[in-house]
């Protein structure tokens, strides 16, 4: 696989599996963000608050993409370091932000 430059490849393909896990998670985040944006501009009447909500969910999605992209790039090295705390908190923060946004819309 391209991007993997290690002296010794791990026969269990752990870095690749972890990269794919990040991709799956990015897909899940995309679905949630699309639902959030759809919720924001629901019902046809596009108000300023709706546009703001859609923009915010897009922003959360982009933030997750950045975190995932950086981690995937780091996993391309032969012997990747462990995930860093702030990246994990940022990834989880995107989920919490979408949930909080949803609560604001639902109520």
């Amino acid at each position, binding site marked *: 696989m391209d991007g993997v430059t290690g002296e010794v490849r791990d026969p269990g393909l752990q870095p690749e599996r972890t990269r794919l896990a990040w991709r799956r998670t990015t897909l899940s985040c995309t679905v949630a963000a699309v639902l959030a944006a759809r919720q924001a501009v629901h019902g046809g009447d596009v108000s300023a608050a709706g546009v703001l909500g859609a923009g915010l969910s897009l922003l959360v999605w982009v933030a997750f993409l950045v975190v995932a992209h950086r981690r995937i790039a780091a996993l391309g090295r032969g012997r990747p370091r462990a995930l860093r705390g702030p990246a994990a908190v940022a990834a989880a923060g995107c989920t919490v932000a979408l949930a909080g946004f*949803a609560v604001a819309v639902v109520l």
Partner: protein
Amino acid sequence: MGDFGRDVRLWFSPQRVREEGETPDYRFSLANERTFLAWLRTGLALVGGGFAVDQFLPDLRWGVRVGMALVLLGAGALCALRAVNHWVRCERAMRRGEDLPVSRFPALLSLAVGLVALAMVLAVVSGWTG
């Protein structure tokens, strides 16, 4: 609760995790990371479910719809926060050579999901008959 405060500080300072014990085999850290991501996906799916309940079940009574959406959204947010916490605790346990932390969170989560599913079945059935 003091333990939890210390864990939360660990979330943000990877070097403090790194000070303790020995670096485990990187494959164990990656496995821990994948577990974290799996929990994160679970949380995202629950949040997506919360959005879906609100958007695709407009015929339900307001209270039922909002109640189910809030339970799903709360479970999703909790899942994400707990994913970080569990990841940090596992990472630390591996560095110290301790047993991995045990947790009753999966049992509580499955109970909550089961209850929401039951509520949805009841809502749909009562919608058909009534």
